[in-house]
């Protein structure tokens, strides 16, 4: 038999002005199971909470209903008070008679009747409430960082500096990501390599960081605090422990004319290579597709010249399993490959602007490599077709970005700024050259950004033309760019030596596949979704997984670094406790009724439903039922409404409780 205590709050006058609280208390006292009913001026105040605690003990209450404001406001307060009074906090419910009653109605009679209904409904509900013990899960204090660009590096260093072990996984042979490819960075024009490479070395030397380059995530299992991650270490064909990084193998390799992806395929590399001289780790990789040994079984020069005997043609892919408590995803971006349409891409516009057909039409990242002192031209701006220094250069912005009809409606955010930077770099290197920029809008929010953009026009003599390009074609050794200047209202035609396209920032290829392995959500472009756009911008909806950098949306370097540090702070918050406590509003399976149809598994957005085998004492399989992992369950209850045999129940929102409420009306 339940002994329910009902407390009606006046909320000063906020409730009592339109609701006759004494009458509500008197009416509710008549309900079966109600042992105590009173009204009080301010229930949330200290004396109010003390009244609650004292009454629970004096009247031996088993359940409590507090009729006051919205549970979104004070549910935690009262549940804590009830706990202090000696009851399980989930035996307390709030009836919302302020936001949903006294504030929205003026007629005293109507509001009072409604309040009585609301309180009565909660009294019936609370009778069916069960004791819910707090759920605790252990926390493994090791973090996994996926992606070794600036975001991953920053997050890994921050977490490792706090004394926690970090496993950093990078798909390419070296960490560094896109930032290592950049020549100089806006708005300060400091050299990217100069600020980036020390951080890369810090990662390599950090005693708490384990680096797995040339590796990919194969499988992710588990939940917050307890992930099991399988990492595939692809065969490098070079033993990392033996290699000293002397580089003799690379000088002797006869295959010297392979386009280097790091140099946007305008530079060349050997078959055994490091992508760039400052690579971390400085251990080469054999590109098996282009290596003579792997193609013909002959050659083996690198093996012969290698002093420490590190070259190992027999090496195979290895799988490593690591246990981690938190995951930071920082897989970064890729540029819109306008020349070539990836298979199945819904985005239109591929093949436009002559990219891929006209050799002197390049993208922004290629320009970065041309301008980079460590790039294929040694920092000279030379056009790819004939190595001539371009005297007229045209930059075209918003290639792909903000073109809703082509399938990308977002702004790529960094292009305005990097194009301004490109015009400056160009002007610094080609003094008698002229840069033109076709643009829609110049978007330069950020510290010292607008000043930087103005400088490119006022001091570095870039000509900005507001308008888009309508036609672009090769004429002799020139590229003719036709477009409109909508500010003046005329058509313009420029015979350019080189054209640079500011192509859109897009997520890394395969971002969707990784998201499926991790069980995190992504938008239609495959950018990963944060839990809340404003208030939880670095967390995924899946607990224990955090986002950093451009994998969540286009970002510049300062923003990426801030988000990476924020993600690291979130990881450290998680690691600050040995055990994780979570609200016990989770789904629970009644195994007796479950027929193992797994309709619940299909609708679960969190991947919390697992298959559990039930065996008899001899070990014979009786049936397979669903099991909801309480560490992963988000507590939405979609499984319960879906279950055809009604064998799964969401604690705190059981059918019993809901039906009791409906019947009370």
């Amino acid at each position: 038999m339940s002994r329910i205590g009902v407390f009606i709050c006046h909320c000063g006058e906020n409730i009592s002005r339109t609701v006759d609280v004494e009458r509500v208390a008197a009416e509710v006292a008549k309900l079966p199971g109600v042992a105590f009913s009173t009204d009080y001026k301010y229930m949330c105040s200290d004396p109010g909470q003390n009244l609650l605690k004292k009454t629970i003990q004096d009247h031996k209450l088993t359940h409590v209903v507090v009729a006051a404001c919205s549970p979104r406001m004070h549910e935690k307060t009262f549940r804590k008070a009830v706990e202090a009074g000696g009851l399980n906090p989930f035996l307390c419910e709030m009836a919302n008679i302020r936001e949903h009653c006294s504030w929205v109605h003026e007629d005293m009679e109507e509001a009072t009747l409604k309040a009585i209904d609301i309180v009565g409904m909660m009294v019936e509900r609370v009778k069916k409430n069960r004791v819910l013990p707090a759920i605790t899960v252990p926390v493994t204090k090791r973090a996994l960082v996926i992606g070794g660009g600036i975001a991953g590096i920053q997050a890994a260093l921050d977490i490792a500096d706090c004394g926690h072990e970090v496993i950093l996984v990078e798909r390419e042979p070296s960490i560094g990501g896109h930032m290592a490819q950049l020549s100089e960075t806006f708005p300060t024009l400091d050299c990217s390599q100069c600020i980036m490479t020390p951080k890369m070395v810090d990662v390599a030397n950090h005693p708490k960081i384990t680096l797995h380059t040339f590796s990919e995530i194969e499988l992710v299992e588990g939940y917050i605090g307890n992930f099991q991650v399988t990492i595939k270490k692809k065969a490098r064909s070079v033993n990392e422990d033996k290699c000293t990084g002397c580089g003799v193998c690379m000088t002797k390799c006869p295959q010297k004319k392979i386009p280097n992806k790091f140099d946007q395929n305008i530079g060349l590399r050997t078959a055994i290579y490091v992508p760039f001289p400052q690579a971390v780790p400085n251990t080469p990789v054999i590109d098996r597709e282009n290596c003579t040994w792997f193609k013909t079984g002959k050659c083996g020069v690198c093996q012969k010249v290698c002093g420490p005997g590190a070259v190992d043609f027999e090496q195979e892919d290895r799988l490593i399993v690591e246990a981690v408590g938190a995951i930071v995803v920082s897989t970064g971006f890729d540029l819109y490959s306008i020349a070539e349409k990836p298979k199945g891409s819904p985005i239109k516009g591929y093949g436009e602007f002559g990219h891929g057909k006209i050799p002197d039409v390049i993208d922004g990242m290629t320009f970065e490599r041309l301008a980079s002192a460590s790039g294929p031209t040694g920092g000279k701006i030379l056009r790819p077709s004939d190595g001539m220094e371009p005297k007229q250069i045209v930059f075209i912005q918003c290639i792909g970005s903000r073109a809703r009809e082509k399938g990308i409606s977002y702004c790529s955010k960094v292009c305005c700024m990097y194009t301004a930077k490109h015009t400056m770099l160009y002007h610094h290197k080609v003094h008698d050259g002229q840069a033109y920029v076709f643009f829609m809008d110049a978007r330069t929010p950020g510290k010292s950004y607008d000043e930087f953009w103005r400088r490119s026009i006022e001091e570095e003599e870039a000509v900005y033309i507001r308008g888009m390009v309508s036609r672009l074609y090769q004429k002799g050794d020139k590229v003719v760019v036709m477009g409109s200047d909508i500010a003046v209202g005329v058509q313009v035609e420029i015979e350019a030596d080189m054209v640079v396209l500011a192509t859109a920032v897009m997520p890394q290829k395969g971002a969707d596949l990784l998201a499926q392995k991790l069980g995190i959500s992504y938008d239609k472009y495959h950018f990963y979704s944060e839990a809340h756009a404003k208030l939880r911008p670095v967390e995924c909806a899946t607990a224990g997984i955090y986002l950093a950098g451009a994998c969540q949306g286009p970002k510049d370097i300062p923003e990426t670094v801030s988000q990476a540090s924020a993600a690291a702070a979130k990881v450290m918050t998680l690691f600050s406790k040995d055990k994780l406590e979570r609200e016990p509003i989770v789904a629970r399976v009644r195994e007796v009724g479950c027929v193992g149809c797994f309709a619940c598994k299909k609708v679960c957005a969190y991947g919390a439903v697992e298959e559990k085998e039930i065996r008899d004492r001899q070990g014979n399989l009786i049936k397979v039922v669903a099991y909801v992992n309480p560490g992963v369950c988000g507590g939405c209850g979609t499984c319960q409404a879906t279950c055809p045999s009604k064998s799964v129940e969401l604690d705190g929102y059981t059918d019993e409780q809901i039906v009791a409420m409906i019947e009370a009306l």
Partner: protein
Amino acid sequence: MKPSSVKYDFEPKIIAFVCTWCTYAGADLAGTSRMQYPSNVRVLKFPCTGRIDPVFILKAFQQGADGVLVSGCHPGDCHYIAGNFHARRRFAAFRKLLEFIGVDLNRLQFSWVSAAEGGKWVEVVTDLTERVREMGPMVEFKELALEEQWSGAINTPELKETYNAI
């Protein structure tokens, strides 16, 4: 004239099934903004519209509700990633069933009300209340219950025979 001061012969009973994160918060906002709406609605809070079993809607009608409102987060805004999509699909199918058993679908309203849409909550509740008030009480379930209890309609010869055979 203020809406609350008008007296009608019939005041419908409206039950609203809402999710915590969007519509409940939207209704809270209507409260904090001191908006006014008819007092006919009784709100039941769920974590997510995905938790709302269609049976609850039937149960509400059976228990004498004259109108039912189901409201949650806008598509894409679900706190639980995709619960509202499941709800939408479920109720799209369920509407047909309700229509089949003879419930006037005007008594049932689905809507998306976000936590920022206090005004929309007021609008939705007011519209539904006024619509159902004009339609009059929902009697079908009550009549059916009475019929089954008192008319002896279920007291068929077949049943009697079966009963005697036991």
